């Protein structure tokens, strides 16, 4: 694992960037931690609300079951009353006395169902108006309307032991009731609560609640059945379950039919395929699903029953809008997000401030060091802090003072030595110049006298000797002239030379013997000895002098990986192979005279590290490649113009 400090060292960035990057990384870590905490809190809170909602749903289911039980209990109390027992005893006795009570019931039933549902026969009116019917109306129906504001009961019916109606609060659909499942179940089990159904007589959805009426000896006397409105029943308990503003409650049967909803719904609508039903698998649970394009937190549980009432196989589903439920966490999340942004901003600002407090002195040190490198030894940095950077600045200033002192001594010494060398050089120059001048004068005098002697002599042998003396004197003259030129090399400091201009100004006066010069050196500037133009002229002069019928001399340049090459080439047949090796040496030519041109050229070029070599092909032409290292040339019209200026 790479240490963080080493990783930072490897980053190709400025200190300030590293500081800011580090601060962003740290703050992002903080923010991520915050977000993780919020997410964990959200999940935890969701679990807490989910479990609380399961409890609420369970309480709600229990309330509904208790409500149903209460209705059962109300019927049980009525069933124990003397009024109903007496009425049933009387009715049963009357039916017992009949020869064929079943036939009577069938006949009455046939007549009953033959009458339209909205009509009431005198027989029906008689039952509706009897004491028991009126008592049931008051005790059950009227009570709930006046005391609870709810029309809880639909139809309430009492049958005798034969299943014939003895009392009723509404006109029932038929007279015989013992052919109904609820009647038989109630007779067998004392009490019965049916599932939700639509009751024609009551014109409402509800569930039948039935209780057997028994005599003093426990004998079966008949059954009281009340139809309890499903919505009305749940409406009473729904209020207690509203925990959040967006709370909704649904009751769904085991096969996925909607039985109740606190929102508008269609009774018995199949909702089993709804998205919110999919996660319901166990006895209870909670989950988040979507309904009406909104995320909601759902909790569900089955109905537990109450006392001897075992409950229905329904599922209660309680849901709340997820946004409302998770509002506390959302508020915290928003606060953490806001704080994170503030934290991030502060981190970045502090990082900027810190980095600039570090990088500004460092930058000043770097600038001062660069100036010192350029020789500005009086450069010092302004030290204001007392930290490590302040110490570094003071150390730098101390070092600069030391260097200034040392360099001051050195400069003095160099100046003294330079003056001494200059004086000596001047003396040597004057001595060489006078000597060379005097020697050349004396050589002229010698050659004059030798010419006069030669004219007066007839001996061929003497002519030959004199010619050799003249040649020797001419060689001596050239050597003296070379020393004059060579003496100039390196005397003046190198400078940027416009090569194109140098070629143009060096060629005038040169006998080109019909050869054409092509100047392809535009825009090129090289750092060279001021005698650089002589090199260009010397190469042209050699092409004309040594080439065989040279017609074209071209100057061009091109860049190579390690610098730039100036090419001077001609079509004069080239340099013989045996002469290439010593081409740049001081050598004596076939005429017996010593060639100094290329030697001098190479010396001029070498002053600034420029090299030259001949790469021509014999039979084609000579080709000189002047290799200019990087940093010693520029290619730019502007730079060339600048240099000219």
């Amino acid at each position, binding site marked *: 694992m790479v240490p963080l400090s080493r990783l930072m060292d490897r980053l190709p960035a400025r200190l300030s960037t590293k500081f800011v990057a580090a601060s962003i990384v740290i703050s992002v870590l903080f923010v991520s931690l915050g977000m993780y905490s919020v997410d964990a809190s959200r999940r935890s809170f969701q679990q807490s609300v989910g479990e609380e909602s399961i409890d609420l749903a369970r309480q709600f289911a229990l309330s509904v079951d208790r409500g149903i039980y209460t209705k059962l209990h109300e019927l049980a109390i009525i069933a124990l009353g003397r009024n109903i027992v007496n009425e049933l005893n009387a009715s049963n006795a009357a039916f017992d006395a009949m020869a064929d009570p079943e036939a009577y019931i069938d006949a009455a039933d046939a007549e009953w169902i033959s009458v339209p549902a909205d009509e009431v026969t005198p027989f029906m009116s008689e039952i509706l108006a009897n004491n028991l019917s009126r008592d049931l109306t008051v005790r059950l129906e009227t009570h709930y309307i*006046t005391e609870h504001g709810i029309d809880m009961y639909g139809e309430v019916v009492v049958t005798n032991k034969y299943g014939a109606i003895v009392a009723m609060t509404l006109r029932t659909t038929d007279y015989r009731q013992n052919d109904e499942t609820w009647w038989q179940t109630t007779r067998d089990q004392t009490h019965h609560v049916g599932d939700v159904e639509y009751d024609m007589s009551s014109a409402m959805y509800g569930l039948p609640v039935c209780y057997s009426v028994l005599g003093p000896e426990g004998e079966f006397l008949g059954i009281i059945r009340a139809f309890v409105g499903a919505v009305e029943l749940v409406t009473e308990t729904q209020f207690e379950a509203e925990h959040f503003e967006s709370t909704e409650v649904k009751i769904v049967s085991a096969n996925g039919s909607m039985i109740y909803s606190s929102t508008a719904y269609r009774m018995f609508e199949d909702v089993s395929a709804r998205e919110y039903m999919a996660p319901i698998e166990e006895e209870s649970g909670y989950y988040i699903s979507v309904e009406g394009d909104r995320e909601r937190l759902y909790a569900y549980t089955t109905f537990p029953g109450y006392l001897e009432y075992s409950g229905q196989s329904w599922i209660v589903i309680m849901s709340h809008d997820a946004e409302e439920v998770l509002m506390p966490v959302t508020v915290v999340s928003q606060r953490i997000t806001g704080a994170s942004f503030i934290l991030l901003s502060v981190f970045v600002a502090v990082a900027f401030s810190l980095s600039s407090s570090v990088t500004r002195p460092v930058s000043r040190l770097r600038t001062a060091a660069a100036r010192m490198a350029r020789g500005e030894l009086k450069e010092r940095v302004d030290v204001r802090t007392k930290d490590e950077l302040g110490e570094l600045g003071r150390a730098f200033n101390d070092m600069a003072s030391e260097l200034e002192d040392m360099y001051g001594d050195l400069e003095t010494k160099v100046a003294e030595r330079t003056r001494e060398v200059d004086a000596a050089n001047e003396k040597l120059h004057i001595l060489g110049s006078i000597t060379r001048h005097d020697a050349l004068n004396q050589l002229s005098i010698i050659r004059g006298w030798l010419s006069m002697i030669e004219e007066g002599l007839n001996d061929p042998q003497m002519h030959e000797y004199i010619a050799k003396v003249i040649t020797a004197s001419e060689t001596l003259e050239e050597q003296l002239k070379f020393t004059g030129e060579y003496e100039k090399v390196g005397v003046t400091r190198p400078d940027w030379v416009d090569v194109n201009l140098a070629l143009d100004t060096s060629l005038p006066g040169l006998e080109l013997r019909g050869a054409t010069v092509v100047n392809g050196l535009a825009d090129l500037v090289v750092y060279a000895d001021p005698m650089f133009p002589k090199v260009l002229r010397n190469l042209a002069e050699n092409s004309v002098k040594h080439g065989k019928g040279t017609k074209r001399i071209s100057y061009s340049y091109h860049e190579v990986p390690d610098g730039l090459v100036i090419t001077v080439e001609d079509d004069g047949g080239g340099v013989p192979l045996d002469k290439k090796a010593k081409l740049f040496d001081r050598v004596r030519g076939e005429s017996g005279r010593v060639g100094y041109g290329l030697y001098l050229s190479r010396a001029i070029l070498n002053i600034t590290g420029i090299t030259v070599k001949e790469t021509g092909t014999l039979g084609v032409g000579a080709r000189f490649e002047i290799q200019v290292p990087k940093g010693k040339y520029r290619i730019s019209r502007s730079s060339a113009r600048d240099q000219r200026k």
Partner: protein
Amino acid sequence: MCTVFIILILIASPMLFERATVKVGVLVPLTGASAYLVDVRDGMTMAAERLNRWGGINGVEIELLIRDTESDPAVAVEAFQELERDEKPLFYISTMSHLTIPISPLAEEAQVMLVGVVTSAQNLTEGRHWTVRFYSNAQDEVDATMHTLGVLGVTDLGVVYGWDEFSVSAHALMSEQFQASGGTIESVQLDTIDSDARDEVTSLLDREAVFICTTAAFMPDALRCLRENNYSGHILTASGGTSNIVRDIPESEGMYVAAPAMYNENYLPAKWLSEEYEARYGRPLTHYASCGYDILYLISGLMRDRELTRDNVHDAIEEGFVFSGTTAPLQVDPGSHDIGFDLLSARISEGRLWYL
């Protein structure tokens, strides 16, 4: 260039940030004789705000486009036309029979659901496909009143009824049924909206009971007149008698009224709404307000997971439903255009309603 771009952005920004809403046209008299129905607006406003807090209808915010019909049918028609032209609401809520009946043909033509609240005229929805009633009808008013008369044993009844569609239809039903039950009846009608009920009522002082079969606006004057003339018989009113403008006057003491069950203090669904409403508006919750509240919740529930179109609103109501509202539990059969609730016999005593 940059400036032009910024200006364009500023011009376009309202369009960019304009959010879709479920528009509901609400035509309610906030001024004029029926201004007491401001309760409907307030109930709807509470429902819309509460629904909007948690996603409106299917995640789309509800926008109530409330227009004052000034208790004037012509203004109501203009308001409907203006909304239909400019806003195209998903559905309309209108109050009062005489203000809703003129709009009904326009709603039929525009094929948009018009829900009448506090609209008891028996014929409101007859032959209509796009008009439904969310209120008890004239028959419900008569049933409750007949029950009261039965309990009181009244056989000689005087009726004062208004000129509007509700009063006329309720009176017709009352006359028919009361006479069918063996009673005698004498009726007087208020000619216009500006009629002084006092003059009409004095002719009924010799009756065993007087039934004020008008909208709530006319009841206070009629009541005062009866009390001032020391009328000793029973006074009965239609459900308008439960409104604050009637219940709050001392002359209402001992009066019988046809009332929805929600005024029962043990009726839990209305309890929390009552507390919240009173805290917010400083007056007791009425069934007008709870109806306004319920209708928005009802349609919100019916439109759950349905595309919000006018046809779907129509279909959702047509399919029938069950709804446990704050006014009453409702069970509506498929195809029915009467979303009604029963009225019960009640008596006003010390400003409170006692059910018989």
